[in-house]
């Protein structure tokens, strides 16, 4: 049931830029990426006179005329539409508080569960400590609202969770989910990737689960390289 690939639309955008043919380099804040009026500053960059300058530490890429900068370290910044994996930390009269490993915790209102829940028996549906995959419904200054209405969302049972650096999630998912689908095919595991860097894996055997985890960690470590799909294919050949 949870075979859905959980990725936000921007994951595709990010990843389409990861063609191995594209020029990519590591830049530090304040460093000049390119010089010339022909280029346009994209995400994470700014114009300073003739130059396009980096606004943070990460990988800079040319996409036609636009220069984009993608972080490879750092904390998760929640956005609307992100699917995240979190843990229930408290039950209130109106819903559940969920720790999603970001600046503010998420709130899941009782109305946002896919079926009717009796207010007196909320802990029978989700108890404190349960792990869920949920979608971010809204991000406001007072907090983050979550929903469980959607394919592949809900309580995660069995299997295990682990985390990677959140800014590397788009590459783990791959374009149109290509990377995570490859890992699913090769290991036969169910995998849910949260945009907050938490990943849930459930397979038929613990060996398969560990293999999937290792493959994901490989992708996360080699995030700055091109041709990752090949690299992972080769890794699977070697570890068959």
């Amino acid at each position, binding site marked *: 049931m949870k075979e859905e690939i959980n990725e936000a639309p921007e994951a595709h955008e990010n990843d389409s830029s990861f063609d191995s043919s594209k020029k990519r380099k590591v830049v530090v804040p304040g460093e000049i990426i390119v010089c010339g009026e022909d280029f346009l500053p994209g995400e994470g960059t700014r114009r300073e006179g003739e130059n396009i300058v980096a606004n943070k530490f990460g990988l800079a890429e040319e996409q036609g005329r636009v220069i984009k900068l993608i972080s490879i370290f*750092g904390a998760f910044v929640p956005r609307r539409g992100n699917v995240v994996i979190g843990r229930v930390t408290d039950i209130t009269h109106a819903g559940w508080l969920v720790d999603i490993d970001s600046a503010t915790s998420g709130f899941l209102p009782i109305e946002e569960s896919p079926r009717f829940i009796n207010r007196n028996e909320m802990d029978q549906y989700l108890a404190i400590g349960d792990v869920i995959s949920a979608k971010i419904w809204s991000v406001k200054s007072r907090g983050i609202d979550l929903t469980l209405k959607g394919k592949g969302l809900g309580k995660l049972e069995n299997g295990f969770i682990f985390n990677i650096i959140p800014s590397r999630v788009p590459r783990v998912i791959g374009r149109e989910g290509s990377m995570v689908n490859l890992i699913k095919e090769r290991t036969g595991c169910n995998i849910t990737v949260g945009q907050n860097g938490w990943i849930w894996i459930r397979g038929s055997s613990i060996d398969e689960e560990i293999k999937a985890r290792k493959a994901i960690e490989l992708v996360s470590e080699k*995030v700055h390289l091109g041709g990752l799909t090949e690299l992972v294919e080769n890794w699977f050949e070697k570890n068959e």
Partner: protein
Amino acid sequence: MTSKRPDGRKNDELRPIKAEVGIIPNADGSALFAFGDTLAIAAVYGPKKLHPQHMQNPATGILRCNYALLSFSVSERIRPGPNRRAKEISKVTEWALAPALDLKAFPNTVVDIEIYILQADAGTRTAGINAASMALAHAGIPMKDLVCSLAAGKNDKELILDLTKTEEDYEEGEGATDFAFAKLANHDEFTLLQMDGKIQPESFIELKKMSIAACDEIYEAQKSALKKVVENNGTENNKK
């Protein structure tokens, strides 16, 4: 000209610099910076929710620094915990780094920096600022530029850079002057200026020129340490 300095350095020569990024796996960003025997580490956490609530700023995130000399960092044990000097340095460090940061994307949050001096031989605040600037970049926080910091000064009439404790305690002639500053690496903007002792206006201008030239060496060390962390490590993850 032969050097008059106790360790045989030229007047405009810095002590050997050591810079490393990603030394604390639990932090969102971390770095080590050393001027000779002065050794500082910095860890960045956040952006995360700010408590107490009355300190929250709905327009922007805020920066909070904590600087501490560890009790074994000096030859005579110092009492651990905040004292007048540590509080002052925490505050000036915060002011030295804040102009480089842009936290408008993270309202109501805080970025915490912890700076610890493992070994002190003068110039601890400057080593701390250099480490903190690298750690902030490592945490993927939007920044205008890296911050470079250096202590310059004067022994009698000799203008010198990067004073050691022995040089700071020099008493002959005009005595010692210690001038700590921080600047944005690629801009002529100073974010910290502090001075102990006396200096003639002409000498000050000369000293400023010497210091700005020496900042390049610090900047290069910071830059190469940040770039190295991408190539060597990616394993620095798995926070929990």
